[in-house]
């Protein structure tokens, strides 16, 4: 660009500069640079152009892009002012551009010395935030107001008059409880002339259990809470105990730092209570899949990432997800930061997928926390004691004189019975598939072929088809068992099934199985591997190309110590792989040998002589099986003989063993019914790696647990785990957590955060409308012990909140979005409030707190099976379940209730911090035609008739006030009474049919009331519920 033209432009711009105010780098320049320049000249080296980065002053200056004090010499200025398309920045292809004012700002900033600062949100708020001076002191009710007023005064705007009392009461009642005030509450408040009238209301509302329900909704959006897992089959999960924990936490005003710590690391707290462990469900209720063929590691990594994203958004206000595949384009979050944070959240014994098939919804992905009812707890305690007693009795008998005597007597004239011998398949003779133990069970071979084996004939296996056998009654993990067979592996398979009786599929098997992994045998009982499994493996490899006799046994304790592997008759050295089994497994349709569906089998191998015993065989018996002889034919030493005697012969020992087994069965039967919930449960740190491009197959360098170095350092006295991380988050000098939290509370009360992008406090987030107020609130919040009720109380008692919300012509022009708060907040009710309010006014609302999700009315064909054949038909509840608050409505992530989605609810697939209220024609269709709302109007109609007086006018006035909390005006009354008369006529003439209308919904109409009158008043109620005066908090 010719210098002359540049100078002309430059001068013109410089002249337009406002004199006086120094440019703020953090609030004015950095957002511009970030939005327009950082994509190519920012933190991400991967997409950096011309080796220029403008996020670092030293680089910007060294490259001449910025010459402090000399905009004319700065190439940045030349480029942004250039009219030459080849030189112009930002370039045309970016579709970005700077306005003249923005260019001017950059020029002025360079002229003023191009000072750099840290992004405001990454700087700890001052210990003491000074309260600004204002002219109109009289307006101030608490410090919040000084910040609001100072800004208004600087803008030359006056605050609004205080709202009428009714309006304030209505606003605060919805804001704190999600429900309308009653007329009694309204009367009491209007009559209360005391100075504490407002405060009394606030305290009453904060004490109501409805408060916790109301405050939980935004938190559950953020925690992506749902009643199903969200992928494909979208199976149900009982996450609601976590939801109830949240409600309770808000109601008992758990300090928010503690609220955060318990959700992130409740399990790691010293002497953690069950509730504290339950709180960690926060990090486990992300979506999970059981779709056939899914790769476990892909989804395990997705789960870890979801935790990082949710923690990033919820507490840090950072878009961590941007750094999963590359360094963040705008914020200083590197990929290293991303994976280092992930390392805090990766160390649980999880598999990555959830189980499907018959186990769907039954077997939760481990780790899971059992939640026995108090009755179950009592039963379990008793049954556990019984199991211990049975164990002791057996043990003491075995060391007793009686036992010794019995053995001595037997030894003199021994017999060798073979009890619990259930199956023997030898694959010989005319009926090679018959069970030699005489039952009718038959083996099925598929396309496998019979062929030679060291003991006659066996099965040569193709690796795809299983040799199929029944389950022989071994169905639960407490049942002792042994299985033996001859096996000839053809190669060192990376993985091959020797036998398995498992349900589910796709590597997430439940049941018992013997695998060959790189030549080693692994014998496993698993509800779910690895989080709920007992598993041992041989240390030595099995030879390939030759036959080995294998016996495995389980003693019913479902502990790794109760599992044994014998090779060629000898117990071999084993390594414990997992010892985490706490609940029963779920077997499949039978014992599959040499292969199973969707798994590797014994390709080119062979098996023979399969036996099954319902007892853990002793060494002597295993030797006998190996040798194909009776135990009596073997030369047994004293100890093997004794072991054999007590296990297979001695009636007393066998009776005591049977008692032990029975006690375990009783315990398991109760345990089966105990509910559980997915939680975090820490294991030793699992190695975590950078994943190149976020791809689970592309491991880069291993990372440590670290927090980003541009945030306050991790406290030295804290453990390097989730607990330490949570305490780091809630340190009083953390610049983000308190600001992000208080901003969301502000958003709930004022409709819009001080930082509007409540999900993003990074460089691309919106600028705070009142930065000093945000800092003051954050400091105040921390100082007051993260007291949420106190913080909210302060907000609603402020003069700012108390303002009338009426629009003024001036504001419609200057601040239609009410950023400056020159008037009170006005917002449409949320989806939940909309329905709850109608239910409350109808008198139908059932206000019980908590419990399993409810299934209110839904439009036919709108839910569940219609879209997803894996799901059952949606069947609405009867009675109470129709009338509970909306936060209890069953939330199926893939098929969400349309009558809530039209009111802007998120899908709960991922973390969401705010909803965008809309105004669409689908909304009136719901509030006018959904049976839920029609029924509510009917019941409100009954209340109008019963409680509203005798004349049309009295009733209309009462109903108006009931629904809107306002006194009716004559012109409104005229419309309302006209409506009544008109509707009465429609029903009387039969044009509309009262009898039909009164049957909508399950609640019977009050038969004492005249049907025509009731229908007409239902119509009146319906009109009122649909008024802006009802559906908007003003």
């Amino acid at each position, binding site marked *: 660009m010719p210098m002359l033209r540049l100078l002309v432009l430059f001068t013109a711009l410089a002249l337009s500069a406002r004199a006086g105010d120094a440019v703020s780098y953090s609030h004015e320049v950095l957002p511009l640079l970030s939005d327009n320049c950082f994509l190519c000249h920012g933190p991400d080296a991967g997409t950096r152009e011309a080796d220029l980065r403008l996020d670092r002053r030293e680089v910007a200056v060294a490259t001449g892009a910025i010459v402090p004090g000399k905009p004319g010499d700065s190439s940045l200025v030349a480029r942004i002012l250039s009219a030459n398309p080849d030189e112009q920045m930002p370039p045309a292809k970016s*579709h970005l551009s700077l306005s003249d004012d923005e260019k001017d700002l950059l020029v002025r900033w360079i002229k003023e010395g191009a000072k750099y600062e840290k992004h405001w949100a990454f700087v700890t708020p001052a210990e003491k935030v000074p309260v600004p001076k204002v002219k109109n002191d009289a307006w101030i009710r608490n410090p919040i107001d000084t910040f609001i007023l100072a800004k208004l005064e600087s803008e030359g705007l006056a605050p609004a008059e205080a709202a009428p009392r009714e309006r304030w009461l209505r606003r605060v009642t919805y804001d704190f409880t999600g429900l309308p005030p009653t007329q009694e509450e309204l009367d009491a408040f209007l009559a209360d002339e005391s100075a504490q009238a407002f405060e009394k209301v606030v305290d009453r509302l904060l004490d109501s259990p409805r408060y916790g329900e109301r405050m939980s909704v935004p938190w559950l959006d953020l925690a992506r809470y749902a009643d199903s897992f969200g992928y494909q089959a979208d199976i149900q999960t009982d996450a609601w105990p976590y939801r109830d924990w949240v409600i309770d936490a808000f109601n008992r005003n758990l300090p928010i730092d503690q609220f955060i710590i318990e959700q992130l690391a409740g399990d790691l707290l010293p002497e953690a209570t069950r509730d504290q462990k339950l709180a960690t469900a926060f990090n486990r209720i992300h979506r999970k899949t059981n779709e056939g063929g899914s790769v476990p590691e892909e989804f395990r990594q997705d789960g870890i990432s979801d935790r990082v994203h949710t923690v990033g958004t919820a507490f840090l206000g950072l878009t961590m997800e941007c750094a999963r595949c590359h360094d963040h384009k705008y914020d200083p979050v590197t990929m290293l930061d991303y994976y280092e944070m992930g390392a805090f959240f990766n160390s649980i014994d999880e598999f990555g997928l959830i189980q499907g098939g018959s186990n769907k919804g039954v077997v939760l992905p481990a780790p899971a926390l059992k939640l026995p009812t108090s009755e179950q707890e009592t039963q379990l305690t008793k049954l556990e004691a019984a199991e211990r007693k049975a164990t002791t009795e057996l043990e003491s008998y075995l060391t007793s004189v009686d036992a010794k005597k019995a053995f001595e007597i037997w030894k003199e004239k021994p017999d060798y019975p073979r009890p619990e011998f259930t199956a023997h398949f030898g694959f010989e003779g005319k009926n090679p598939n018959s069970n030699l133990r005489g039952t009718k069970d038959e083996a099925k071979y598929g396309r496998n072929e019979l062929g030679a084996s060291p003991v006659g004939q066996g099965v040569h296996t193709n690796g*795809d088809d299983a040799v199929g056998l029944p389950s022989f009654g071994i169905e639960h993990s407490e049942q002792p068992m042994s299985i033996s067979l001859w096996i000839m592996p053809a190669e060192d398979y990376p993985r091959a099934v020797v036998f398995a009786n498992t349900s589910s599929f796709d590597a997430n098997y439940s049941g018992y199985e013997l695998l060959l992994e790189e030549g080693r045998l692994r014998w496993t009982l698993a509800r779910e591997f690895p989080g709920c499994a007992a598993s041992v493996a041989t240390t030595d490899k099995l030879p390939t190309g030759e036959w080995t006799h294998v016996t495995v046994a389980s003693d019913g304790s479902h502990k790794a110590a109760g599992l044994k592997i014998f090779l060629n008759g000898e117990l071999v050295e084993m390594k414990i792989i997992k010892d985490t089994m706490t609940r029963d497994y779920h077997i499949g349709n039978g014992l599959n040998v040499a292969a199973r569906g969707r798994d590797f089998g014994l390709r080119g191998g062979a098996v023979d002589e399969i036996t099954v015993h319902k007892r853990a065989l002793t060494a002597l018996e295993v030797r006998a099986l190996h040798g194909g002889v009776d135990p009596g034919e073997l030369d047994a030493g004293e100890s093997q003989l004794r072991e054999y005697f007590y296990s297979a012969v001695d009636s007393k020992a066998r009776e005591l063993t049977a008692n032990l087994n029975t006690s375990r069965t009783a315990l398991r039967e109760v345990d089966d019914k105990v509910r559980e919930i997915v939680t975090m449960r820490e294991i030793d740190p699992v190695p975590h790696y950078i994943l190149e491009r976020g791809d689970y197959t592309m491991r880069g360098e291993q990372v440590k647990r670290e927090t980003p170095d541009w945030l306050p350092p991790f406290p030295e006295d804290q453990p390097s785990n989730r607990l330490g991380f949570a305490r780091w988050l809630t340190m009083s000098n953390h610049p983000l957590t308190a600001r992000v939290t208080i901003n969301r509370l502000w958003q709930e009360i004022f409709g819009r955060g001080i930082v509007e992008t409540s999900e993003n406090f990074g460089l691309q987030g919106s600028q705070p409308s009142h930065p000093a107020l945000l800092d003051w609130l954050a400091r105040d919040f921390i100082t007051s012990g993260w007291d949420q009720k106190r913080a909210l109380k302060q907000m609603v008692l402020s003069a700012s909140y108390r303002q009338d919300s009426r629009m003024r012509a001036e504001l419609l022009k200057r601040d239609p979005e009410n950023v400056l708060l020159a008037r009170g907040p006005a917002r449409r009710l949320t989806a939940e409030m909309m329905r709850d309010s109608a239910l409350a006014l109808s008198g139908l609302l059932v206000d019980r707190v908590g419990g399993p999700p409810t299934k209110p009315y839904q439009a036919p064909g709108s839910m569940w099976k219609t879209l997803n*054949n894996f799901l059952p038909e949606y069947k609405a509840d009867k009675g109470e379940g129709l009338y509970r608050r909306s936060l209890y409505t069953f939330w199926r992530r893939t098929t969400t209730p*349309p009558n809530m989605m039209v009111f802007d609810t998120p899908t709960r697939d991922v973390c969401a911090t705010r909803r965008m209220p809309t105004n669409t024609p689908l909304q009136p269709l719901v509030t006018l035609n959904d049976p839920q709302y029609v029924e509510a109007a009917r019941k409100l109609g009954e209340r109008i008739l019963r409680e509203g007086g005798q004349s049309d006018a009295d009733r209309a006035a009462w109903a108006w006030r009931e629904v809107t909390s306002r006194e009716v005006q004559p012109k409104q009354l005229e419309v309302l009474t006209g409506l009544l008369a008109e509707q009465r006529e429609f029903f009387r003439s039969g044009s509309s*049919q009262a009898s039909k209308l009164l049957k909508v919904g399950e609640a019977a109409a009050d038969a004492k009331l005249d049907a025509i009158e009731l229908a007409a008043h239902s119509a009146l109620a*319906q009109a009122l519920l649909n008024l802006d005066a009802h559906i908007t908090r003003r």
Partner: protein
Amino acid sequence: MNFMQHPLSITRRRLLQGLGATALSSLVQGRTLIAPHTAPKAKRVIYLFMSGGPAQHDLFDHKPMLQELNGQALPDSVRQGQRLTGMSANQSILPLAGSQFEFARHGESGAWVSELLPHTAGVVDDLCFVKSLWTEAINHDPAMTFFATGSQIAGRPSIGSWVTYGLGSPNDNLPGFVVLVTRKPTDQPLYARLWGNGFLDSRYQGVRFSSGKDPVFYLSNPDGVCQSGRRALLDSISKLNQFDYESEMDPEIEARISQYEMAYRMQTSVPEVTDLSDEPESVKELYGPDVEEPGTFAANCLMARRLAERGVRFIQLYHPGWDQHGNLPKNLRRQCKETDQGCAALIKDLKQRGLLDDTLVIWSGEFGRTSYSQGTLTKTNYGRDHHPRCFTGWMAGGGVKPGFSYGATDDYGYNILGPDGAPIEPSKDHFTPGAVHVHDLHATILHQLGLDHTRLTHTYQGRRFRLTDVHGHVVKDLLA
């Protein structure tokens, strides 16, 4: 008043600072409406989504060599270690499975179509085949989410939401984005997120028309309420809201008044469009006997045409059931029978009304299927696993080349071939001639609507999101 774009700021998205109320009318939620970036070739889209993953080797991608090599193992040199799903990865052999269906060339364009699709075969000269679609996901849920939203991650806006967000809808009385799902038992589920608005506001949510009593949920008045009674009720609501508007001066109230009117009009306009009884017999014959049964694919195709006529911007049909892991010969025949005539009828019908020129029709699944058999291959039976590396879809109308075929796969039907006829490893990072990635398809669809996929953005979480992420190229070779 327009359904999608009430001119007054309906949401409270941040407005540009200092913006006056008069400027509001040109805004949709704080953003100037995106006028088409380029001259549009298509005004609307009908997307026929075949969920489950249709088996391309049995429909369009004719591979005689697979028949010759039937039963032989897929060579490692062809697969080159590419990932498989856990459903077939552990098989001891991956036996190549030739199609058991007859293929023939059709039309002047000579396109290969199997015997399963006789009606489609009759309109091939109007179709633009893409034999080299490819995607990244290998499981249904992520793959469908990818096709529907441009991302495997849940929570992004669907393509129909993007289009209505960008272009709005010309019809005042119908939603701009309508979804029609075939009513049939499905093996693979659908998800509301496939037509969800993601981080766009909920005005851009696809509205699913059901084949039940209410085509739009809650459309009918409650039992016992007559239409004049409803009208009178709405008049009273309107009056009372008007009083409040006068005192509150909040444009939201005015907007609400008109939304109630709009809802009332929808009670007429929706049944009118979904009631097929006024269609002449000749048209019904075109769509076949299924058209008489609400909720069939044929009925939905006809409804799609009616919606298109009325200017609905984005119409998406979902027909599930294409997931033939086993029993392919029997089940694929059924799938084709359910859809073939409807597809062809829709093309003919649009064409005879002159609507095909500015309506872009797309047919695709979320991925293809393997050329080897999952499970046992017998003389009469086989199945195919998921295959994201290449599959066939077609487009028609809306400014794409008719009677044209783009892209090719190797003789094994396993890999995409480059222009020189050698197998290639396409990348989404740059345009790979011969291959059409999901992002490329999306970019091309938007382009035909006059939208530049790099400029159709919405800022969320500080980032300008696009349907095509940071990828996608308009496939110019497909354009007429």
